[in-house]
């Protein structure tokens, strides 16, 4: 995939990867140990329910970073609230576990202030499509160089199983007897219509394939959106059947938004792979030299 989103004449060095982050080279005369997925995992062990798809997505994120050979200290992982939003603590990268639904706002600020960092945003369907829904639309529209990975399990798992925007209208539960009767939110459709420059879907049961998609998403300029179907075995045990429903999309990615729109509007939600890789230039409002020092900012708060 060519970095089409960059201005004419701005070549991308071969070792420049991951949304603009320069990759550090080993010093002369030394041989750096190759980074593996384990290089990006922290010593904290996940507390997700055994069987949760998020284990697999964590593995995919770390494998993708290893494929790109990014120094962990050049990567920031930003999240909101929810089971999947715990990911920053489980990585050895910089992390920010922020406010519910506001991960994209925090990540946008970080990327604009520190364009040299690779910024990943992780979260769930409730955090991203409901509480953070408006931020999702405008993050797509702004097209800042971020990679947003949403672990979609069609339920609020951390708070005991309330329906989320992607929950099926007839999903019956004590918290929504008879189902909500509400039309589901279509994340890929919304991302595409709102201007995301890269739109894809992965599946937690395919960690290697999802790692490749995330690596491509990180490489692609602009806002990259990766929805990952990540079963919740506790509140949606029937999602174990997803493994029999998903299949690689039978078509190659397109850079034509109209073609992608036609495909995704007839999609049953179980085609995995890259749907759209566009060429819209990433937001270029940075870098700008800092005009204030931390001391100047502190001075504004003096009483």
């Amino acid at each position: 995939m060519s970095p089409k989103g960059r201005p004419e004449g701005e070549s991308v060095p071969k070792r420049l990867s991951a949304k603009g982050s320069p990759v550090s080279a080993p010093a002369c005369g030394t041989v750096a140990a190759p980074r593996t997925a384990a290089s990006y995992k922290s010593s904290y062990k996940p507390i997700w329910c055994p069987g949760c798809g998020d284990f697999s997505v964590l593995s995919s994120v770390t494998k993708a970073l290893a494929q790109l050979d990014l120094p962990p200290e050049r990567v920031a992982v930003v999240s909101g609230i929810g089971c999947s939003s715990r990911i920053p603590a489980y990585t050895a990268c910089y992390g920010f576990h922020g406010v519910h639904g506001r991960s994209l706002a925090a990540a946008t600020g970080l990327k604009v202030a520190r364009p040299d960092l690779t910024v990943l945003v992780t979260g769930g369907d409730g955090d991203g499509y409901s509480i953070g829904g408006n931020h999702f639309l405008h993050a797509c529209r702004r097209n800042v160089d971020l990679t947003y990975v949403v672990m979609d399990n069609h339920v609020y798992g951390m708070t005991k199983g309330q329906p989320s925007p992607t929950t099926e209208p007839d999903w019956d539960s004590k918290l929504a007897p008879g189902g909500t009767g509400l039309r589901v939110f279509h994340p890929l459709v919304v991302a595409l219509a709102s201007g995301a420059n890269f739109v894809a879907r992965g599946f937690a049961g395919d960690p290697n394939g999802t790692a490749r998609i995330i690596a491509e998403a990180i490489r692609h300029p602009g806002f990259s959106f990766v929805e990952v179907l990540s079963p919740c075995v506790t509140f949606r045990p029937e999602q174990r059947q997803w493994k029999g429903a998903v299949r690689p999309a039978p078509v190659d990615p397109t850079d034509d938004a109209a073609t992608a729109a036609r495909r995704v509007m007839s999609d049953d939600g179980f085609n995995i792979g890259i749907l759209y890789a566009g060429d819209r230039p990433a937001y270029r409002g940075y870098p700008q030299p800092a005009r204030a020092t931390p001391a100047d900012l502190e001075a504004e708060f003096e009483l």
Partner: protein
Amino acid sequence: MKSSPVAPRPATPSLADFMARAIAMELEAAQRYEEFADAMEAHNNPEVAAMFRKLAVIEARHGDQLLAQMGWTELPFQPRIAFEGFEGPETAPVDAVHYLMKPWHVLELALAGEERAVRFFDHLARTTDDAAVRSAAEEMREEEREHVELVRAWMQKVEPPPEGWEIDPDPPRYTD
């Protein structure tokens, strides 16, 4: 799907390519068992955690043996592995565990993985045109058959799960 940035496997499958696949299979299976062990420790199921940890050691040791057999210290290239499903035959599915599962269930998972590995290597041995690959695949198939028997014997020594093992008097579900 787009191509991976890692070095692709050689265009013509060779013995090195085959062995790289076999080693990657073992190491990925070991990693999955490690993840399961961590999860079970976090959920206060130490007996099952210890058993997953033991399986992880066994799989990793097998991977290391294969590396040594090839004279490698690490995989020289990242193989692209084509399996029937999304993952290698020895890798237990990520959703195949339960926080109340018993050691017998762990062995049941391991047995299924070893049986899938037998079928995988048997298929390779019967379909490859390369004599060296065929010989190696047959050898691996026999090793996996031995593992199947070892796990079966192990299961005989482990108490089967009692009826209702999955019943939690304080369940997290609100949905039934």
